[in-house]
C-alpha cells in the first residue's frame, strides 16, 4: 500500500522547495529536502501530464485506482514532463525494456541564456553571425561580376567625392582667387573642373545605384523563391506550429529587411567607411592640428546619438502601436458594419474610434516635440564644431600661418564627416537585426519538419491503389503531451464507405489527416493495400486521394482551371462530364462566361452549394481511389443540399470513402460508422447495430433527432 498522506501538494518549480522525480532500477523515486518516496513499476498504471491555464501537473495513476499529483511545473516544462512520462509508461506497459530519457535543454550551454523557444534550441546570442553572414554572401556568387563592379564604382565615387571640397576650398581660394596663385584668374577652369567632378560623381552613383537595385532585388527574389519552395515541401505540422499567416508576414518582412541590407546597408557602409577614412587622412595631411580639432566633437556626437536613439525609438514604437490599434478599430467596425448597424451602435463605434485616435494624436505630438528638439540640438552641436574651426582657423589665417583656402576645405569636409556618423552609430543594431532576419529565413529553408521519408530504394510503388486501409494502434497529438487520438485500430475494405462521427474535438479531422498522410502518427501504423503508408510513393498516394471539404477552397482562376486542378490538361468534355456528375454543369453553363468564368473576382458570387459542387467536380475528375468528405454538406441550405448529396452519392461509388458529418442523417449511405469519443474509437458498426448498442452513438443520434424534430426538421 502506498503512503500518500504526506504528499498533499507536490511542487517542482512553482513553489519554494525543489522536488525531483526520477526513475531508478524499476522504481519511481520522488524526493524533496525532507524525504524520498518510491514506487515499484508494478504498482504504477501510468504517468499523465495535465495542462492547465498556466501550469502543468504530472500525475501518477496507480493500479489500485489511486491518483497522485507528483509534480507541478510551469508550462515550459511540458516537453520534459511528457518525455519522462512517455518513457516510464512504455516501460510499465512492456513496450520497452528500459527507461531511457533525455533531459530537455532549456538554456544555451555556452552563455546560459534561456532559449527563446525550447522547441528550437537556437541561442540568439551565440548564434554564429559571421557564418550566417558568409551564408548570406553565399547567395551572391551568381552576381559576382556585378558586385565587383559595384564595389569598384563605390571606391571611385568615394575618391571623387573627396575632390569636391578640395576644389571648392583650397584650389578656388588659394590658387585661383589669390593673385599669386598657380591658376590665378582662371576662374572658368576651376568652375568647369568642379562641374565635371560633380557630374562624374552623379553619373557613377546613378550607374552604381542601378546595378545595386538589380542585384539586391535579384538576391531577395532568389531567397523568397527558396523559402516558398521550402514551405511547399514542409508537412502540415510545421504550419500548425507556426500559424501560416504570421509565417508569411514574417518571411516577407525578413526578406525585405535583407533587401535593405543589400540595397542600402551594405553599400552605405562601404561608401561611408571609405569616406571617413579618406577624409581623415586628407585632413591630417593638410593640417594635423586643425584636423584633431575637427575630430574632437566626434565622440560627443556619437555618445549623444547613442543615448538619444533608444528614446526616440521607444517613441516611434509607441506611435506605431497606437496607429496599428487605430487601424484595428477601423477595420473592426467597418468589417462588422452590418452588426454595428443592426444593433444601432454607431455612436459607440465613433467613441471607440475617437479614443484610439486621441491616443495617436497624443503620441504624434510627443514624437514631434521630441524630434524637433533632438535633431536641431544635434545639428547645433555639429555647427559648434564648425564654429571652433572658424575661430581657430580664422585666427590662424589672420596670423598668416594658414591659407583661407585650407580653412574653407576644412569646413567643406566637416559636413561630410559628421553626416555618416549617425549611420555608423547604428551599425551594430542594423547588423544584428539583419542577421536575425537571415537566421529566421534560413530556419524556414532548413526546417526539417517534414514527413518521415524512407530511403529511395525502400519506396514501394503500388501503381493503382485498391483502397484497403488498415490502422494499427494509432496515437497522435499535434503538440507533444496532448494526444488527440489514442490507440486506434481498424480495417477498411476497398470501396467501403465509412462515416466518422463524434462530438467536436473528438479527433475526427485528425483521423482523416493521418489516413491521408498529411501527418505521420506519433506511434502506430497506417497500411494501404497492406503496405506501410510511409513507404508508399507519396506522389502516387496523393494522386489517388481526393477531398471535398467544408470550406471549399477555390483558387483564383477560371472554373475550368479549378475543376481541372488535379488534371491540368483535361479535355473540355472531361471537365463538363465531371461537372455533370457533380450536378454543376447546369448552373455553370448558364453563367455569362460559362466554364471560363473567373473566380475570386468580386462580381461573381457563387453560393456555398455551387462552390461545393465545383469542388466535387474537381474530385470527380481527379478520380481518386480514396475519398475524404469532411463536412461536405455542412454549409449548404437544405434545398441545394439535395443536389450536393446526389452528386456525392455518385462520387462515392466504388471508392474507399471516409466521411465526416455532424448531421448524422447525411451519413445514411455509409456501410459502417466509426464513433470517436475523446480521441478513442469507441464504437464501430452500421447505423442499426449502433442504435441497438445504446451507447455513445445512440446518445448522439437521439439528441440530434430530438433537436431537429423540435425545430420541425425531420431527422
Amino acid at each position, binding site marked *: 500500500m502506498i503512503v*500518500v*498522506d504526506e*504528499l*498533499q*501538494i*507536490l511542487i517542482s518549480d*512553482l*513553489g*519554494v522547495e525543489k522536488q525531483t522525480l526520477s526513475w531508478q532500477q524499476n522504481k519511481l523515486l520522488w524526493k524533496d529536502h525532507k524525504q524520498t518516496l518510491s514506487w515499484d513499476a508494478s504498482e504504477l498504471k501510468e504517468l499523465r501530464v495535465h495542462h*492547465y*491555464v*498556466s*501550469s502543468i*501537473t504530472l*500525475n501518477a495513476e496507480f493500479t489500485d485506482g*489511486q*491518483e*497522485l*499529483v507528483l509534480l*507541478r511545473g*510551469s*508550462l*515550459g516544462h*511540458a516537453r520534459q514532463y511528457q518525455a519522462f512520462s512517455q518513457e516510464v509508461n512504455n516501460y510499465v506497459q512492456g513496450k520497452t525494456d528500459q527507461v531511457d530519457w533525455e533531459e530537455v535543454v532549456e538554456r544555451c550551454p555556452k552563455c546560459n*541564456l*534561456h*532559449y*527563446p*523557444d*525550447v522547441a528550437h534550441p537556437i541561442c*540568439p*546570442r551565440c*548564434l554564429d553571425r559571421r557564418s550566417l553572414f558568409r551564408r548570406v554572401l553565399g547567395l551572391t556568387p551568381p552576381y559576382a561580376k556585378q558586385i565587383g563592379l559595384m564595389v569598384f564604382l563605390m571606391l571611385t565615387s568615394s575618391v571623387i567625392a573627396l575632390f569636391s571640397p578640395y576644389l571648392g576650398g583650397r584650389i578656388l581660394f588659394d590658387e585661383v582667387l589669390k593673385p599669386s596663385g598657380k591658376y590665378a584668374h582662371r576662374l572658368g577652369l576651376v568652375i568647369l573642373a568642379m562641374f565635371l567632378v560633380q557630374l562624374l560623381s552623379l553619373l557613377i552613383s546613378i550607374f552604381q545605384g542601378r546595378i545595386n537595385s538589380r542585384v539586391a532585388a535579384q538576391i531577395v527574389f532568389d531567397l523568397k523563391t527558396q523559402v516558398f519552395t521550402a514551405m511547399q515541401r514542409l508537412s502540415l505540422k510545421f504550419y500548425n506550429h507556426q500559424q501560416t499567416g504570421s509565417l508569411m508576414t514574417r518571411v516577407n518582412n525578413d526578406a525585405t529587411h535583407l533587401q535593405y541590407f543589400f540595397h542600402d546597408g551594405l553599400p552605405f557602409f562601404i561608401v561611408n567607411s571609405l569616406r571617413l577614412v579618406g577624409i581623415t587622412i586628407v585632413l591630417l595631411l593638410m593640417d594635423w592640428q586643425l584636423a584633431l580639432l575637427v575630430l574632437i566633437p566626434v565622440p560627443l556626437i556619437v555618445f549623444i546619438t547613442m543615448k538619444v536613439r533608444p528614446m526616440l525609438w*521607444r517613441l516611434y*514604437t*509607441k506611435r506605431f*502601436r497606437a496607429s496599428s490599434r487605430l487601424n484595428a478599430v477601423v477595420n473592426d467596425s467597418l468589417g462588422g458594419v452590418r452588426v454595428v448597424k443592426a444593433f444601432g451602435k454607431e455612436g459607440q463605434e465613433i467613441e471607440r474610434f475617437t479614443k484610439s485616435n486621441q491616443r495617436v494624436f497624443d503620441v504624434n505630438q510627443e514624437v514631434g516635440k521630441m524630434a524637433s528638439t533632438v535633431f536641431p540640438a544635434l545639428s547645433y552641436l555639429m555647427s559648434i564644431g564648425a564654429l571652433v574651426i572658424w575661430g581657430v582657423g580664422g585666427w590662424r589665417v589672420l596670423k598668416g600661418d594658414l591659407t583661407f583656402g585650407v580653412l574653407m576645405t576644412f569646413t567643406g569636409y566637416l559636413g561630410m564627416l559628421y553626416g555618416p556618423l549617425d549611420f555608423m552609430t547604428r551599425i551594430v543594431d542594423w547588423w*544584428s*537585426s539583419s542577421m*536575425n532576419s537571415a537566421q529566421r529565413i534560413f530556419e524556414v529553408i532548413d526546417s526539417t519538419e517534414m514527413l518521415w521519408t524512407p530511403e529511395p530504394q525502400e519506396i514501394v510503388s503500388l501503381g493503382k491503389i485498391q483502397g484497403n486501409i488498415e490502422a494499427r494502434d494509432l496515437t497522435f497529438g499535434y503538440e507533444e503531451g496532448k494526444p488527440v487520438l489514442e490507440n486506434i485500430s481498424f480495417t477498411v475494405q476497398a470501396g467501403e464507405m465509412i462515416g466518422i462521427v463524434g462530438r467536436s474535438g473528438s479527433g475526427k479531422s485528425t483521423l482523416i489527416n493521418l489516413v491521408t498522410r498529411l501527418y505521420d502518427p506519433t506511434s502506430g501504423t497506417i497500411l494501404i493495400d497492406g503496405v506501410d503508408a510511409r513507404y508508399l510513393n507519396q506522389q502516387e498516394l496523393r494522386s489517388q486521394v481526393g477531398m471535398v471539404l467544408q470550406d471549399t477552397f477555390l483558387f483564383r482562376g477560371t472554373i475550368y482551371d479549378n475543376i481541372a486542378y488535379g488534371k491540368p490538361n483535361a479535355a473540355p468534355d472531361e471537365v463538363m462530364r465531371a461537372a455533370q456528375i457533380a450536378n454543376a454543369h447546369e448552373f455553370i453553363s448558364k453563367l455569362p462566361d460559362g466554364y471560363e468564368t473567373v473566380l475570386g473576382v468580386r462580381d461573381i458570387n457563387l453560393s456555398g452549394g455551387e462552390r461545393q459542387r465545383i469542388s466535387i467536380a474537381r474530385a470527380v475528375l481527379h478520380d481518386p481511389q480514396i475519398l475524404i468528405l469532411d463536412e461536405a454538406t455542412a454549409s449548404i441550405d437544405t434545398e441545394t443540399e439535395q443536389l450536393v448529396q446526389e452528386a456525392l452519392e455518385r462520387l462515392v461509388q466504388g471508392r474507399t470513402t471516409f466521411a465526416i458529418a455532424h448531421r448524422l442523417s447525411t451519413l445514411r449511405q455509409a456501410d459502417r460508422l466509426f464513433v470517436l469519443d*475523446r480521441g478513442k474509437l469507441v464504437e464501430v458498426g452500421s447505423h442499426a447495430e449502433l442504435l441497438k448498442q445504446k451507447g455513445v452513438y445512440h446518445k448522439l443520434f437521439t439528441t440530434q433527432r430530438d433537436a431537429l424534430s423540435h425545430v420541425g426538421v425531420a431527422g
Partner: protein
Amino acid sequence: MNDLHYLDVEQARFRTTPGGLVSLSLGDEFYPKVDLYLAFPFTYPDRFISVHEPEGDEIGLIRELAKLDSVSQEAIKQELQWRYYTPKITRILSYKEEFGHTYWEVESDRGEHEFVTRGRDQTVRNISERRTLIIDVSGNRYEITDVTKLDARSRQYLETLL
C-alpha cells in the same frame, strides 16, 4: 435550452484528496476528481467557478466561493491557484530587448523569475488601464496588478509595452 446549473452550496463538499486532487461530494454522488475553471478569471477570480468531471461534462457552477463551507473554500482556492498560476510582479529587475526577444528578470510575490517573451501582440494583454498580463513564450502568465504602483524604473521598462 437548459438554464445555467448552479451547485447547491448546502450539499457540495470539496476536499483536497491525499493525492493532491480535488474531490466533490454532492449529496449521494461522489466525484473522486473534478476539474475547475474560472468563467471570468480576471474580474471574478472567486465567483462563477465551473466544475467539470475530468475531461467531461459540467457538473455545475459555483456562483460564489464564499458561500461554501470553509474547508471547501480552501481546497478550491488552492487548486485554482495552481491551475491559474500567475505570479504578481512587484518589481522588474532587468528588461532587455535583444535579438527579437525580450529577456525579463522580475520579482514577484512568488520569488524571482526569469523568462523570455516574443512579439508584443502575444506578449501583453491589457486587462484594464492599470492591470496587465504578460505571457512568456511557453504561455506562462505574470500579472502586474497596478502598473502605477511599480517603481519608476520598472515603469520605464514597460513604457513601450503598454
